[in-house]
């Protein structure tokens, strides 16, 4: 209908109508002169937005400009010495930490989401309990996770400060994030998919693993990527669980610092500020890549 109207209408009349219906910047300014209060509010709104985004650009620009000159090959040598505070061991530890924590957290989170969406009775008390605890977990600050990890994994289980203690602390920390995103992804799979699969004679498990899960992969992946970002940037929860030894340990039971911890130790010692700046660039690069990836995946979801 819409197209028909615009084709038959006189083009000249249409443009005048459009002109009458859109405010030019001049009109807007005139109206602000008449209503100064509105003008002030509009100005403050613009100022707020400009402040926020200027801060973001300034933060990123400043970290990059400060750190990039100090990025050099010796920072990536394989061993850490007190003269050459190489970040490579911490980088490797970060990768190990991320991998171990996700290998545990992703299946647990996804399975929990499957239970909530496919099996649990909606609104039952048990489901409510799970929701409340997941919400509580996502509000707990990382230092409290750190304390718990120290008390439970390091002390009570006698694992000592180790990559494993740190990774399991991370598992609890990112679990609510993975659970929530996976739950939303599973919920957004249309019921007709499930009905069609049942109609073809597939069982419940087969339907979940071959029909529902594959369609929910982008949403689940976006959550997992966000979880990676949390682990890479975490400091407070790892300080007293994985420890700050600056080498790649022989096993998961050995202590090792991640990149963020490496940066904290360097800047709090105050001896290697330039190397801390360079480490900040590496961490920021990680964050930028992770954010870009999750954005890409999210766009894929939007396209369907």
């Amino acid at each position, binding site marked *: 209908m819409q197209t028909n109207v615009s084709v038959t209408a006189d083009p000249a009349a249409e443009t005048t109508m459009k002109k009458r219906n859109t405010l030019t910047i001049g009109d807007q300014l005139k109206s602000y002169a008449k*209503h100064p*209060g509105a003008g002030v*509010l*509009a100005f*403050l*709104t*613009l100022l*707020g*937005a400009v*402040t*926020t*985004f200027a801060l*973001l650009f300034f*933060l990123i620009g400043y970290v990059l400009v*400060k750190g990039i000159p100090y990025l050099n090959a010796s920072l990536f040598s394989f061993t850490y010495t007190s003269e050459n505070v190489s970040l490579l061991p911490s980088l490797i530890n970060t990768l190990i930490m991320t991998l171990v924590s996700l290998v545990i957290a992703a*299946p*647990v*989170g*996804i*399975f*929990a989401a*499957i*239970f909530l969406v496919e*099996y*649990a009775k909606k609104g039952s008390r048990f489901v409510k309990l*799970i929701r409340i*605890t*997941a*919400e*509580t*977990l996502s*509000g*707990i*600050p990382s*230092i*409290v996770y750190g*304390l*718990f990890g*120290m*008390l439970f994994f390091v002390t009570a289980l006698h694992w000592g400060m180790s990559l494993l203690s740190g990774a399991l602390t991370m598992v*609890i920390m990112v*679990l609510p994030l993975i*659970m929530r995103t996976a739950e939303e992804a599973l919920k957004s799979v249309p019921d007709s998919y499930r009905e069609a699969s049942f109609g073809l004679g597939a069982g419940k498990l087969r339907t979940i693993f071959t029909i529902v899960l594959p369609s929910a992969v982008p949403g689940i992946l976006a959550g997992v990527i966000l979880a990676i970002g949390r682990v890479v*940037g975490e*400091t*407070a929860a790892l*300080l*007293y669980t994985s420890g700050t030894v600056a080498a790649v340990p022989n096993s998961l039971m050995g202590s090792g610092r991640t990149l*963020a911890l490496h*940066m*904290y130790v360097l*800047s*709090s010692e105050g001896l290697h*500020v330039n190397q801390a700046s360079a480490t900040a660039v590496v*961490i*920021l690069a990680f*964050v930028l890549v*992770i*954010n870009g990836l999750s*954005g890409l995946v999210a766009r894929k979801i939007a396209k369907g």
Partner: protein
Amino acid sequence: MKGVFLIAACASVLAVFLICVFLFANGLPAMGKIGPLKFLFGTEWRPTNDKFGILPMIVASIYVTAGAILIGVPIALFTSVFMARYCPKKIYKPLKSGIELMAGVPSIVYGYFGLVLLVPLIRQLFGGTGSSMLAACILLGIMILPTIIGVTESAVRSVPESYYEGSLALGATKERSIFFVMLPAAKSGILAGVVLGIGRAIGETMAVIMVAGNQPRMPKGLLQGVRTMTANIVTEMGYASGLHREALIATGVVLFVFILIINLSLSLLNRRAENAN
């Protein structure tokens, strides 16, 4: 297989249970030994003399959080109004991912930014060491921006368009319609965003440690150093032992109780926001 899914679903319940048990079991005895009133309201923290009063840290945490809210909320509120009502469509997506990026920047990087830029700046402008409550307030104010903007923007967006149109039709300007009709309607959502920001600010550790100075005494002024509860735990846990260590864990328990109260008020607010719609 259903059993496996069920066990996975119990993981979060188990985690919360274990966290509560271990924190309280390790922290409460220390509070008993020191005396709960002496611990919570004592103004002196001198572990070497067996004086464990954490009131200075509690007050510092509250002051720093309040300062961050004072700085962050107005900027976040105006930014979210901009995002929801003013932003041209073409630049909306890049700006939105900018805010997501801001939320993804780790606190250690914010802390570093504060340490190398904010602290020297305050030292030059106002004197003193620069590591101060003011630095912590400003830095936290910046850090909670993305959290509050995200929640507030969706709260403003969930107000029915008819409110806006009705107000315009009555002759109100665009600004009056947004700020005096739509924002009051989005009140509980906005409040939820602010409470979420409070939770972030009070629990923030690394960034605060790097800029706040960490002196364990009652806050005396904006330009003096302070130590928050979170900073107290991290700065001394490395070498503490015996009752000192237990007192630090008890500090964590107090922080945890603060967070639980904030969580509770958040879920109450969310329920109210849902009922309102």
